[in-house]
C-alpha cells in the first residue's frame, strides 16, 4: 500500500516508532507537548534540547528530516500573530535591527514561536508514523467521547467527497462563463457555499439511514483490540520523560 492510499501527512515505513500502538504514541506526544508548554520561556537552551529529542525520534522512525520540515509550513498562519507581538505589546523597548521593539513582546513572540514549532513538529511526527485510521482507533481506546471520534472519522471519510463536489460545482460555474473577480462576485461564491452545505447535510441524512439500516445504534464497534505491552509503553515514555527532565532543569536554572 503506497502513499496514494493514505493521507498526505503519513509516511509509510517500518520502524519501532511506526509499530507502536496509536494510543501509546498519542499519550506520549500529548505529554511531551504539555511538558514543552510548561517550560519557562527564558530557558532558551531547553527548546534546543527538545528539538534534539524530536530529531532523535525522527531518526528512530527513519522519516527523512525534510519530510517533517516541509510539513512545518502548516504552522505559518498560526504564528503570524506572534510576529505582531513585539510591535504592539506594552513595556520597555529595546533596539533590534534599527527597530524599537517591546521587550515583553519579543519574549511573547519567542514563547509562541518556540512552543508552537516544537508542538507542531511533534504532531507532524505523530501523523507521519501513524495511519489516520489507527489514530482514530487510538483516540477511541483512550476513551475520547465516541461522538467526537465518529465526527473525526466522518471528516476523514467525506473530506475528499465534499472537496470533489466543490470542484465539480466550480467547474460547472466556470463552464458557464463565470470567474470570481472581486467582491461583486462574492454573492455567487456564498450561494455555492450554501448549496454545498445543504448537499452535505442531505448526504449526512442519507449516510445515517444507511448506518441505521446496518444496525447502528449510536456506537461504533471497535474492530481491533490488540494488547499493549509494558515494553511498548516504556519505549514511548522515553520522549516525554526526557523532556520532563529538561523542563525541570529549566525551572531550577531560571
Amino acid at each position, binding site marked *: 500500500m503506497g502513499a*496514494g*492510499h493514505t493521507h498526505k501527512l503519513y509516511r509509510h515505513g517500518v520502524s519501532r516508532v511506526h509499530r507502536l500502538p496509536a494510543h501509546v504514541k498519542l499519550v506520549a506526544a500529548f505529554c511531551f507537548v504539555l511538558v514543552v508548554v510548561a517550560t519557562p520561556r527564558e530557558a532558551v537552551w531547553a527548546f534546543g534540547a527538545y528539538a534534539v529529542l524530536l530529531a532523535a525520534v525522527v531518526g528512530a522512525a527513519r522519516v527523512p528530516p525534510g519530510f517533517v520540515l516541509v510539513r512545518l509550513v502548516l504552522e505559518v498562519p498560526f504564528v503570524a500573530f506572534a510576529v505582531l507581538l513585539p510591535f504592539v505589546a506594552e513595556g520597555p523597548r529595546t533596539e533590534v535591527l534599527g527597530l524599537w521593539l517591546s521587550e515583553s513582546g519579543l519574549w511573547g513572540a519567542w514563547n509562541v514561536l518556540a512552543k508552537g514549532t516544537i508542538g507542531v513538529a511533534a504532531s507532524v511526527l505523530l501523523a507521519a508514523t501513524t495511519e489516520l485510521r489507527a489514530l482514530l482507533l487510538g483516540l477511541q481506546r483512550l476513551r475520547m467521547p465516541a461522538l467526537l471520534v465518529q465526527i473525526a472519522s466522518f471528516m476523514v471519510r*467525506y473530506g475528499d467527497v465534499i472537496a470533489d463536489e466543490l470542484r465539480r460545482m466550480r467547474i460547472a460555474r466556470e463552464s458557464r462563463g463565470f470567474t470570481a473577480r472581486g467582491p461583486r462576485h462574492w454573492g455567487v461564491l456564498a450561494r455555492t457555499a450554501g448549496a454545498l452545505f445543504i448537499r452535505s447535510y442531505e448526504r449526512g441524512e442519507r449516510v445515517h439511514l*444507511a448506518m441505521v*439500516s*446496518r*444496525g447502528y445504534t449510536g456506537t461504533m464497534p471497535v*474492530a481491533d483490540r490488540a494488547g499493549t505491552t509494558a515494553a511498548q509503553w516504556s519505549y514511548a515514555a522515553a520522549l516525554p520523560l526526557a523532556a520532563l527532565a529538561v523542563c525541570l532543569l529549566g525551572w531550577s536554572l531560571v
Partner: protein
Amino acid sequence: MTPPPALEVAGLAYAYPDGHQALFGVDLTVERGERVAVLGPNGAGKTTFVLHLNGILGGGAGTVRVAGLPVEKPNFAEIRRRVGIVFQDPDDQLFMPTVRDDVAFGPAAGGMRGPELEACVQRALARVGMAEYADRPPHHLSFGQRRRVAVATVLAMEPDLLVLDEPSSNLDPAARRELAETVRSLDVTVLMVTHDLPYALELCPRSVILGGGLIVADGPTKELLLDAELLAAYRLEIPFGFDPGRA
C-alpha cells in the same frame, strides 16, 4: 410446514409528515430465492417502499414481514440483519475509513468480533470479487468497485433479502455486467428497485410495477415489458433499439 415467504407486504400505506401520501396500500409477496424487480418511474414511491422493508419508515397502515418476522420496533436489530439494503449512492453507504472496516461494520454492530469477523469480511468481499481491496479507503475505488463493495457490506450480514436501489445507475457497461454477474452468483432473495428495464429483464424473472403508490402489475418481466400500453401508462420506456421479445 413450508417456510414463510422471504417478504410479505400487505396493505402498506404511508404519508410523509408534510401530508404527501406516497404509498396507498402495497401488497407484495416474494418467495425465498426469487429475484424480483420493482419497476416504476421517478417519484412512484420506490424508495419510500424500500425504507419500509427494514423499519426506517413506518407508522402508516399495513404490515411488512421478513421471513415471517414482523417489521416492528422490538425486532429491528434482527430485521436489519435479515434485510440488506444497498443504497443508490455508494458514497452514502461506505462511511468508514477503509473497505475492511466498512464491511465489518454491520456484523460488528451485531456483536461479531475477532477472527470470525475477519473471515466474514473476507468472505463477503470475495463474493463480489473485491477481496484484494480490503485495505483501501473507499474514495480511491472506481464507482463500480464502490458499488460492489456496498453490496459486500450487506452480504457480510448474511441477509435473507437483498434489496438493491437503482443498482445500475451511473455504471459503465462493464461495471454493469460485473454487477449483474455478482448478483446472479448470489444464493439469496433479491428485490431490485429500478427503472432500468433491460437490467430488470436480465436479472429478474419476475417484475412488479409500482405506480401512484400501488402495485399495478405483477408478472413475468418479459410479459410486462412487451405490454407497451402498460409501460406508457406508468412512464416506463424501453430504451431505443432494445427489443425485450428477442433479448
